[in-house]
């Protein structure tokens, strides 16, 4: 008997559209909210311990204060014409289908109250202009939905008026903090930075022990003594990096990458145990006072250690805060070397060395990786790197291409200034918001699936501590390994050839043989 082997016709792979508009599910995320800050967390950073009795009056007064001191905020609240351009641009809307997560609708939760108390029409004819009283119900909506915005500003890119929606979310959180309705995750962390110098609560002894441990690891791996100096007075460069770089995976591989670059460049550098945090969560809650105080720690560390330059490690919103505000919050930095950017990003530093031909890479060390790059929202839409427009997009990619043979970008409407947030930014990287985080990651995960299917991409690099943690946590839900997110400087660390380094060991070869996607046609590669 003849056995017929029938092969199913080859179907082109279907790629779910990252920007696919969901069928609306009103109220789908109404119950999503972060844990409340305790009295201790609130008072430690200058806010009332619990909801004050006259919260309504004080909230309205605070809103009035904010719109009178921030011309920008007033314009953002006044100018929206409800054109709808932003409605389908938010990753949380796309992932949750809750219409209140359309940026226009979320902002309107604050805007309708502003209109009621601060505009002529809203005061006298509220029903005509969608103005509403501030009630307990409205306050609860604020708490829920302003903690469903990661302040990533993707919607702002598409707004014809350029309304900065992040500013609206920050203002809402600032008002809530001022009446005693704070969020635990951010406020506990800010308190820890005031006390210990970093988000983790890492103290000097543990900090030093961790760095020494990493020095041992590098020496074991490469045979080269690479230092990770702490509190070394008189060093040229102060590196300020997120404390996740001292704790989490794959962040710590990025830190090792910075150290190897500094070593190979012969740079004199140090970290500080006093300013052991690049992140500035004061920005997430819209608190100028807290932002200011956190920024001053960096200035004090730079002065005390008598450095000439400040360089920031891989942290998205830290770079936004540093690039835009470090000089106004903690400047002038006239004691630093004015020949270098103040502050400078580690990617700028590494890229400059690559351009000068001062670093040697063995790209084959990353041949087990087929890579794409996730543009972090705050770096993309709120900062720049280098001297050219778009440097914040091109410089990290140039570093990755210099260190890896297989690089592929995700679809154009999901990268660069159109990048999707990881789903955990803006002070939402907390476990009780996991449902929101997983749903919010959907557009990015779909874009990644696209290049995984098309080009066999196995890994995604990021330059933000939040993005790295968020992806490591949510990727398994989308069918990717938790370690398929890597640090940009991890790629550098893998490929950099240090002077005197011992050559490949057998372990590397084994890893390469096991790696998925290995052996795909290199001709597919993009130029």
């Amino acid at each position, binding site marked *: 008997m003849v056995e017929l082997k029938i092969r199913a016709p080859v179907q082109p792979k279907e790629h779910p559209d990252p920007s696919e508009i969901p069928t609306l599910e009103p109220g789908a995320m109404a119950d999503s909210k972060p844990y409340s800050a305790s009295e201790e967390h609130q008072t430690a950073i200058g806010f009332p311990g619990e909801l004050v009795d006259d919260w309504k009056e004080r909230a309205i007064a605070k809103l009035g204060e904010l719109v009178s001191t921030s011309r920008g905020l007033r314009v953002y609240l006044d100018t929206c014409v409800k054109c709808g351009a932003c409605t389908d641009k938010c990753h949380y809307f796309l992932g949750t289908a809750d219409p209140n997560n359309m940026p226009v609708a979320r902002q309107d939760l604050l805007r309708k109250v502003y209109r009621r108390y601060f505009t002529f029409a809203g005061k006298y004819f509220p029903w005509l202009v969608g103005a509403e009283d501030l009630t307990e119900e409205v306050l609860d909506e604020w708490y829920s939905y302003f903690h469903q915005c990661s302040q990533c500003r993707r919607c702002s890119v598409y707004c014809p008026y350029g309304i900065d929606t992040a500013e609206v979310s920050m203002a809402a959180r600032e008002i809530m903090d001022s009446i005693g309705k704070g969020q635990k995750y951010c406020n506990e962390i800010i308190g820890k930075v005031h006390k210990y110098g970093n*988000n983790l609560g890492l103290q000097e002894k*543990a900090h030093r022990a961790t760095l020494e441990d990493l020095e041992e690891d590098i020496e074991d791996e490469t045979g080269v003594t690479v230092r990770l100096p702490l509190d070394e007075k008189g060093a040229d460069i102060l590196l300020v990096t997120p404390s996740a770089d001292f704790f989490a995976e794959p962040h710590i591989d990025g830190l090792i990458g910075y150290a190897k670059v500094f070593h190979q460049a012969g740079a004199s550098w140090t970290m500080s145990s006093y300013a052991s945090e690049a992140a500035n969560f004061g920005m997430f809650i819209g608190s100028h006072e807290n932002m200011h105080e956190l920024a001053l720690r960096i200035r004090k560390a730079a002065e005390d250690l008598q450095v000439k330059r400040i360089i920031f490690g891989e942290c998205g919103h830290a770079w936004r805060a540093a690039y835009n505000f470090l000089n106004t919050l903690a400047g002038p930095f006239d004691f630093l070397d004015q020949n270098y950017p103040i502050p400078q990003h580690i990617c700028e530093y590494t890229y400059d060395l690559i351009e000068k031909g001062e670093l040697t890479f063995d790209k084959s060390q990353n041949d087990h990786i087929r890579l794409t790059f996730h543009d972090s929202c705050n770096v993309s839409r709120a900062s720049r790197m280098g001297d050219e427009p778009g440097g914040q997009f091109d410089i990290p990619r140039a570093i990755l291409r210099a260190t890896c043979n297989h690089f592929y970008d995700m679809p154009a409407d999901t990268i660069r200034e159109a990048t999707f947030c990881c789903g955990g930014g803006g002070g939402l990287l907390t476990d009780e918001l996991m449902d929101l985080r997983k749903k919010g990651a959907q557009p990015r995960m779909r874009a990644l699936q696209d290049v995984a299917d098309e080009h066999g991409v196995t890994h995604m690099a990021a330059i933000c501590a939040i993005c790295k943690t968020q992806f490591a946590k949510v990727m398994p839900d989308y069918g990717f390994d*938790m370690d398929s997110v890597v640090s940009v400087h991890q790629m550098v660390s893998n490929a950099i050839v240090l002077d005197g380094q011992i050559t490949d060991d057998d372990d590397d070869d084994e890893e390469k043989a096991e790696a998925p996607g290995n052996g795909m046609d290199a001709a597919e590669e993009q130029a």
Partner: protein
Amino acid sequence: MSYQINGTTVEHDEEGYIQELDKWSEQLAEVIAADENIEMTDEHWEVVNFLRDYYEEYQIAPAVRVLIKAIKKSMGKDKGNNKYLYTLFPYGPAKQACKIAGLPKPTGCV
């Protein structure tokens, strides 16, 4: 929000982390673990004990890499990796193991 153990009450926060660290006991660890659907084995105890020793010296949980290295030393290469630690503590060795060990939750972008 509390654990009940031998007629005594140990307060915990919204996520199950105990508030007073000196109230921890091995029995309590078993109770917390059961709450997390984890049955404590020798391997779990190896991790928990290391975390507690490290915390005593440094007042913080160790970096994941430091933990892995220690486990590699005590349990061998097969078990000294992140994936194995996740099989022991499915929600992540840093947070879930700290909770069972009676240590504060690691905070920040981690």
